[in-house]
């Protein structure tokens, strides 16, 4: 069996044009796997390390990202208003209170997916590109109109999967759609992983998921109750570093920038089973 650390790397973070931002969509097949959590925390962690990041919620009609980032009471304008011309882009962007490098463009709650017109959306992205290093798009679940809106503007994508079959096979379908439009998807994040259940055979192991999808592993996030707690309190995980999931997201952001970081202790077999494996039991 190959070592997990051999496919712990990232191709998404590599930038081809240093002057313009790279647009990265965070996608998944199934809903509820943690796209929004991953998007918010990865963006925040990168912004904390000094990069200029813009995050756009493209889940029109069912916005979530503002709740996780804790901006719910500061939304006055949204991306549809910018496209329609009712307000300017700088009016709609919300900067973070603690991390000024991060700005957020919220989605509209009263429109439907079709309201995000390709032409206008491309104009918004193009206006943001020279000022930021990375632009993250939080994709809606499923493969409908909402996902097709993103295809024309996206440079690259990160897939978020849970260690279950329906989420992995759904992710495979979405990757296929992106590849049909010549967008290479190279990296994945495994969310809600638990090494004990995986070793028992209840969950898919990291090796099994990699065998099906054939992607680089950007990182693994453990099953952790602090994720839900952070969502409800409105303070993102990354801002309070003492949780395992928060640490996992910091590590993901460092791997994203090309550093070699090994997996957290929670994903490794314990000392005795490793020794037993080496001896040959």
């Amino acid at each position: 069996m190959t070592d997990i650390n051999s496919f712990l790397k990232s191709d998404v973070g590599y930038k081809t044009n240093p002057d313009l931002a790279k647009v990265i969509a965070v996608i998944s097949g199934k809903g509820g796997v943690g796209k929004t959590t991953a998007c918010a925390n990865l963006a925040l962690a990168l912004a904390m390390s000094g990069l200029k990041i813009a995050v756009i919620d493209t889940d029109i009609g069912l916005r979530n990202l503002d709740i996780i980032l804790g901006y719910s009471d500061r939304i006055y304008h949204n991306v549809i208003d910018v496209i329609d011309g009712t307000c300017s882009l700088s009016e709609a962007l919300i900067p973070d209170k603690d991390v000024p490098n991060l700005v957020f463009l919220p989605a509209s709650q009263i429109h439907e997916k079709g309201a995000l017109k390709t032409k206008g959306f491309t104009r918004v992205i193009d206006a943001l590109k020279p000022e930021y290093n990375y632009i993250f798009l939080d994709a809606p679940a499923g493969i409908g109109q909402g996902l097709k809106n993103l295809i024309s503007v996206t440079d690259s994508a990160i897939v978020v999967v849970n260690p279950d079959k329906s989420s992995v096979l759904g992710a495979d379908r979405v990757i296929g759609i992106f590849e049909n439009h010549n967008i290479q998807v190279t990296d994945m994040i495994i969310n809600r992983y638990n090494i004990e259940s995986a070793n028992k055979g209840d969950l898919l192991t990291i090796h099994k998921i990699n065998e099906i999808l054939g992607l680089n592993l950007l990182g693994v996030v453990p099953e952790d109750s602090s994720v839900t707690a952070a969502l409800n309190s409105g303070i993102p995980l990354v801002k309070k570093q003492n949780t395992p999931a928060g640490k996992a997201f910091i590590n993901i952001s460092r791997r994203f920038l090309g550093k070699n970081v090994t997996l957290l202790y929670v994903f490794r077999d314990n000392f005795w089973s490793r020794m037993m494996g080496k001896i040959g039991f």
Partner: protein
Amino acid sequence: MYEEKAVTLQRIRSGLYIVLDDRIPFYNLKKLFYKKLQSMDSYIFHTNVIMNFGSREMRDSDLKEIITLGEDNFKLNLLKIITKVPELKEIAKKRGYKAEDFIEKSELEFSEDVLNEDTLWIKKSIRSGQLTEYRGNVVVLGDVNVGARIIAGGNILVMGVLRGDVWAGKDGNLGANVISSFFGPSQLRIYDTYLLKSEEILKEIKENMPAVAFLKNNTIFVKEYKEWSLRGAK
């Protein structure tokens, strides 16, 4: 009357030779071209074509329109353009296509042996929801994931893991085989027969060894590749 002869297709060594009548209006020609290709079903996908425009005079936008019509809808691969108009030849060369006055006779030859060699190479994995149709053999240098589908007129060879739906010998080729390094299709079909996953066959598949599926007496059998190749692939 003239509509039937407006677009004629001819099989040649390198693929397909399309002759477009130069007497009918361009607007009608577009429609007839699309209809004719659509009636050819899956045969037409990924074909190399040579297009003959005769002495029709065309603008740059017209040429682009009719070529993208074929490329986008039927994934045609344009090899060259035959035209008698020097202006059109220059336009085609600007767009990066070859253009000539006439087609050489040796290129028009066609025999059944050519069909046997006709192979589509796919140098990546096929993901769920992606459909590949080809009239000849299909070789995949990668995996075929669950939910992906391959339809071929000839044999199918998968170098990686085969987990998707495959249909070999679609047009009546009873000798078509499906070969894979890691054999485990969710659905397998040769001509009009499905693979029934009986206990014997599941045992054969479980080994995760290179395996071959073939048709014999209206039933599909699966054999380990080594055993099958020793008997001389009869």
